[in-house]
């Protein structure tokens, strides 16, 4: 080791151990990558084997019941559907509007960077904090009560940063030549935005919006804060009805499974329904991206 010049023999001697070390670590790195996937596989297998036999027409269509053999999740499915009815238009309008402002209208300056920083900070706020905002603002101050509108608006605020960032990226990807050509034909700014830039960015915007939506319908924490009743309630039929949602149902059945063991299986069956819904949404997002994404 103290030789001042390279010792060919020494280098050769250490070479094989260095190469072996490299191979060994490579195996470890690969195993780590697989670890997450193995856990995912166990989770899916476990939930499907536990819940699959409980999924049938009755389970999907029935009202909630304390009797595990008769309980159904139609109310939760409808609740989740109604939440989507609120979340989709609210996030689309506010999200795309904000993105258009930031990308196309705002002058580069303090205001624009302030709004952008604010959005990236909002993305890091824990979802439970949004729940408290929803409780204070929508349920209490605006006196909506714990209805679908309050839940939907809370979830909308939660996923808004995702939609904004996705829409910004989509708008940015539209090449400048397109809008310049539009201006060259005498179109005004808004005409260009509305007829040229937005249609070109639409697939990207939709993909982001669907991903945000799937985040929203899997979210539980904000809803637990809003005070969603675990009681048997009638099916919701409008945005001013109280409701339960799929993740809330999973939550109640899971924590009660220490009292009634069968509830755990019902929770697993509900998880399957939720996962299938999320899988469909994500497939649609990927489909849109592959089918309509234009390369310029």
């Amino acid at each position, binding site marked *: 080791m103290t030789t001042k010049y390279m010792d060919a023999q020494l280098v050769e001697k250490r070479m094989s151990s260095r190469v072996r070390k490299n191979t060994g670590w490579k195996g470890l790195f690969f195993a780590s990558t697989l670890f997450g996937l193995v856990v995912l596989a166990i989770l899916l297998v476990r939930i499907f084997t536990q819940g699959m036999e409980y999924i049938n027409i009755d389970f999907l269509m029935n009202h909630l019941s304390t009797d595990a053999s008769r309980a159904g999740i139609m109310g939760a499915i409808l609740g989740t559907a109604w939440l989507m009815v609120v979340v989709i238009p609210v996030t689309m309008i506010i999200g795309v509007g904000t993105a258009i402002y930031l990308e196309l209208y*705002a002058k580069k300056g303090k205001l624009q960077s302030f709004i952008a920083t604010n959005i990236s900070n909002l993305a*890091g706020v824990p979802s439970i*904090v949004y729940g408290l905002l929803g409780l204070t603002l929508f349920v209490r101050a605006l006196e909506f009560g714990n209805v679908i509108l309050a839940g939907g608006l809370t979830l909308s605020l939660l996923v808004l940063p995702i939609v904004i960032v996705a829409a910004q990226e989509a708008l940015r990807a539209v090449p400048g030549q397109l809008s310049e050509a539009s201006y060259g034909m005498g179109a005004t700014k808004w005409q260009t935005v509305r007829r040229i830039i937005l249609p070109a960015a639409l697939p990207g915007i939709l993909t982001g919006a669907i991903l945000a939506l799937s985040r929203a319908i899997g979210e539980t924490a904000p809803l637990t804060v809003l005070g969603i009743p675990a009681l048997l309630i009638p099916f919701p039929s409008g945005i001013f009805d109280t409701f339960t949602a799929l993740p809330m149902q999973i939550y109640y059945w899971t924590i009660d499974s220490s009292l009634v063991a069968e509830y755990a299986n019902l929770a697993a069956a509900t998880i399957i329904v939720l996962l299938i819904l999320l899988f469909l949404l994500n497939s649609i997002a990927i489909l849109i991206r592959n089918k309509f994404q234009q390369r310029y």
Partner: protein
Amino acid sequence: MIKALIFLLFKEMEGGCRIMATSNKNRMSVSEMIEQQKKKRKFFNQLERLIPSLLLIIASISVLTTIGIVYTLFAESVAFFRNVPILDFFTGTILKPLSQNPEFGVLPLLNGTIISTVIAMLVAGPIGMMSAIYLSEYAPDNVRRVLKPLLEILAGVPTIVYGFFAFTFVTPLLRMIFPSIEATNILSPGIIMGVMIIPMIASLSEDAMSSVPNSIREGALALGSTKLETTFKVVIPAALSGIIASFVLGISRAIGETMIVAIASGSSKNFTFDITQSMQTMTAYIVEVAGGEAAAGTTIYYSLYAVAFTLFVFTLIMNLLAKYISRKFREEY
């Protein structure tokens, strides 16, 4: 209302293109047509000038959200600290919100939060980091293209599903190894939280490592180092700011995670370091109290906001820290 306005706007604009066709049918004189066009144009010009301010109003909703969060948390926390001295809150080791003589010490919750975060990071840190090294340095292109999206699925699973899994599968599994473990404990949600954070650390660290230019890598390889030596002595130091930032974001995510701990760690407010016992995190406390019958205006109701404010400040500091690290210490090539 905004939606209706925008809808109206779109309809008006489309009307503008069709005017030639309709006017032809009605056999308008040329001067009439010119008059009408002028009117239309004036209307559009006004709209055109309105749109930036309309969009600014929409964009300011995100700012209003932040203000709303900070204001509600702060205002209600102030109400709480009128009943409970601020020092007692931050130094108290006993949390008994429902007893006759309620005590509101936040330390048991802080303790639960920190312990679950440490467990999660012990899982997610090394595994996420090693996954990132594999994906960035070792994996052939086609393998990476398969593995990366699969890993991202882990991040897309709703946290309630992880909570269910931790409670009904991991805890019974742990009981085979440690028979003394409680039915609700901090260890099992901690581990599962780590699994949830793996893809976040893996993909952010991978981004940081892949952005290290290849010329540097090739230089190290040309000097005779193995891939492992190149990774540890060249790539990782060069990407360190991004890697650390991903860890800090992972910590922030773990602090704010709610459903996994709310389900699998129970609601006992012990101030203990025994990870086989039930502990409550700040997030789980909020779920428990808000889900129960905390009437508005009571001290226990206000305690929600004081805890949430603490939580908010913690995660905000972590997020700002991550941003600062990745900006300040980035190596430019």
